[in-house]
């Protein structure tokens, strides 16, 4: 049972965390918020943006502020699954040789899968189990990952040559997808100032522990959401399916596959986390609206016609949100 103290502590923890991150990262409030929501929901985050916008810095800042183990995996075409999850190596102990498991970089609390679409699908798939089940299986042995665990993957949307787009199954395992855009002029000036004066950029000191994160996660799951809002979420998700009676005309015309049930889970959990971060005692429609796009944008697959005509999933989702009635 959640007490008033638990709630206040959790909210205070994340306020500190947010401030710590914002002390390093200029702008990108939505991306920071998405990162915190993913952390609160026990989810993973896909960050998309061109190089140099601070994606990696954001992840490093988060790890630093949490005081948790951080590992960065630079995905390249020749990266092997064993390079991620680890492998059995022969060790000698008292003259006796034996296979000993050597954990890979995935054994951390905060994992940065940098440019995840540069590795082959086989290597990308090595993350699937870790992301969903929070375990790693090597040979016959399965090793649990330490909580809190979060994978933050980045991908570059412009350099598509030599890349391997993430398979749908893996994309679906990311709770949210955040697009990192260019900073505005003031933000750019601020970034330049922070990086060119004094000691340069300094990562924050830890402001939250792993245990506090886990406690906050428990609190978030208790945030109430009205039954009718849950039904509303269901209608929203179904409205992205071309065969559904809830689908909008554009969805019927341009969508091949709609969002999976994971989208509904992501939407509700994300809305709860958003309400928690906003200091609210319940999920509001505004919370759903805030996470609707990042929770669904990577889960809707356009058909050939949609691709050919350059339809943006974001536009389709905006129409779905507009057309779907709450009651």
């Amino acid at each position, binding site marked *: *049972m*959640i*007490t*008033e103290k*638990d*709630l206040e502590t959790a909210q205070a923890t994340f306020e500190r965390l947010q401030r710590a991150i914002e002390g390093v990262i200029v702008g990108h409030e939505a991306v920071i918020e998405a990162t915190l929501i993913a952390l609160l929901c026990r989810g993973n985050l896909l960050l998309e943006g061109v190089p140099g916008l601070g994606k990696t810095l954001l992840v490093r800042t988060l790890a630093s502020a949490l005081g948790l183990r951080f590992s960065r995996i630079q995905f390249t075409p020749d990266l092997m699954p064993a390079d991620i999850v680890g492998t059995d190596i022969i060790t000698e102990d008292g003259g006796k040789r034996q296979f000993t498991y050597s954990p890979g970089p995935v054994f951390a609390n905060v994992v940065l899968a940098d440019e995840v679409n540069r590795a082959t699908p086989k290597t990308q798939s090595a993350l699937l189990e870790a992301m969903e089940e929070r375990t790693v299986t090597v040979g016959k042995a399965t090793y649990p990952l330490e909580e809190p665990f979060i994978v933050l993957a980045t991908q570059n949307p412009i350099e598509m040559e030599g890349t391997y787009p993430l398979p749908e199954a893996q994309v679906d395992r990311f709770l949210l997808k955040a697009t990192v855009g260019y900073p505005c002029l003031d933000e750019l000036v601020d970034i330049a100032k922070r990086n060119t004066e004094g000691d340069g950029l300094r990562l924050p000191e830890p402001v939250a522990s792993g245990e506090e994160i886990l406690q906050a996660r428990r609190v978030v799951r*208790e*945030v*109430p*959401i*009205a*039954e*009718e*809002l849950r039904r509303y979420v269901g209608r929203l998700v179904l409205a992205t399916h071309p065969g559904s009676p809830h689908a909008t005309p554009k969805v019927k015309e341009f969508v091949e596959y709609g969002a999976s049930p994971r989208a509904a889970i992501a939407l509700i959990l994300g809305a709860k986390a958003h309400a928690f971060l906003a200091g*609210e*005692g*319940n*999920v*509001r*429609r*505004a919370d759903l609206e805030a996470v609707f796009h990042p929770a669904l944008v990577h889960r809707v697959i356009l058909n050939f016609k949609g691709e050919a005509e350059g339809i943006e999933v974001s536009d389709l989702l905006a129409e779905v949100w507009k057309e779907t009635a*709450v*009651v």
Partner: protein
Amino acid sequence: MFDLSRLLRAIERRARRLRGLRRAGIAFGVFVVVPLGIAVCYRLNLLSLSWPVLGGVLALPFLAALFAYFLVRRPKASLPRLLLRVDQALGTSERLSSLYELRQRGGGGVFRRRIEKHLQDRPLPWKKGLPVGLTNLIPFATGALILVGAYLVVAFAPSPLADLAESLSAEPPVAAEKRTAGFSPEQSVPAPPEQSGSPLESPPQEAATPPPDNFEDVLSEIWSTPATGGALVQGGEDLSGLIEEQQALSQAIEELLSRIQERLGQEGGALTEAERRALSELISGVTSPQLRQALESLLEETDPEALEDEVEQALGLTRALARTEEAPTPEEIEKIHPPAEESEGEQAFAWTPPETPEEMSTPDGEGTGQRSAGEGTDEASADQDQPWGREEDLDPHGGTRGAEGQGTPQEEQAGFIPTDLAATIGSAGAFEEFLTKGVPVEPSTTEAGEVDRYAVNYETLRAILEGRSIPPEAREVVRQYFETITQGGP
């Protein structure tokens, strides 16, 4: 502390009221058809109802609406849905809905307190979310007003039949002078003498029955007669089909007889076997006993000279019969109403139903209205086999009218017979009245010998009905019509 239970009860009551109003509206909409339908039927004289009954029918949709509002069992409203509606209306960030959710699952103490604190701190005009008031009642009241208005319009507006009667009676002056004399309410009507016998003879009349004073009443009286009203519709349909058949048959007989006449004129001799066979086949469809008899005697005739006469006679009879089954031709209409005297609009009302027998038997008009005084009565009995009778049978004045010459030659030629009666139309004063030739109506005299009314000539009527092959089920209607416009027999 925020009292959710009380709010829920109030919302539930409000929702029931709303639902009741909605159902009342539906019931009203459904049952509103009944009084409107009844009013329309009443207006078209398909129903005979008293005004209290009509008023009671008007109340039916209102009673149905009340029944739906109060008595129909209403399912429980969906509270989560209602609460979300209230949340949306009040902008309470779905707190009411969430509070209800927490209450239902029995937990969330921390969040519950937070939500209640939020709700306590602000006024909660929750009724905005479920408005029951003038806005809900306006459509209902508008519908009721429309109903009452439509009901009154339908109930009191002149019926289409009345319009028809008015348009028929509003003839132009020339046509009005020439029209068949109608029954004037101002005229005193002596009770007709009682008669008995066949249906075509004058039945006993009830002296106390007030005379119908307009065409609409006459029609409604005929329609309301159980023995004939229902059969009239079906009879009318059958009649048009029968007439078409008879026209085709007459045409076939006429063509055959023409060919026979032509051949006999060139070659002479008797009927060939093929002609006999063709004639025999056609005779089976002939309904006119006179024509049938003429054709049968034609078949039996062996004398070549007599045969030619028989053919000519049968041909003339066939043509005459065919003409009785046709509408008047434009030439005939023109003959009755010369274009120089009437406008186009007047011609629209210029149709005169039956021609005189002479006109029918002699299409060139020879002898129309030109009979001498002695011819009619002497030859009437000899010509009784003719399908329409002779003019003397149809014209109560026999040939004397033509001799007396009371009507102008043009009027007589047009098929009207002047009478001794004078009609009064509105404030325009008295008008000389005319009878259409060929109708089974004649002026009637009182015991004092004064001519003051019209009566049905049943002999003429029977001759017309039989001669024109009118179906038996329609004969009674025709008889009633003439009785109604004349107040019976002599």
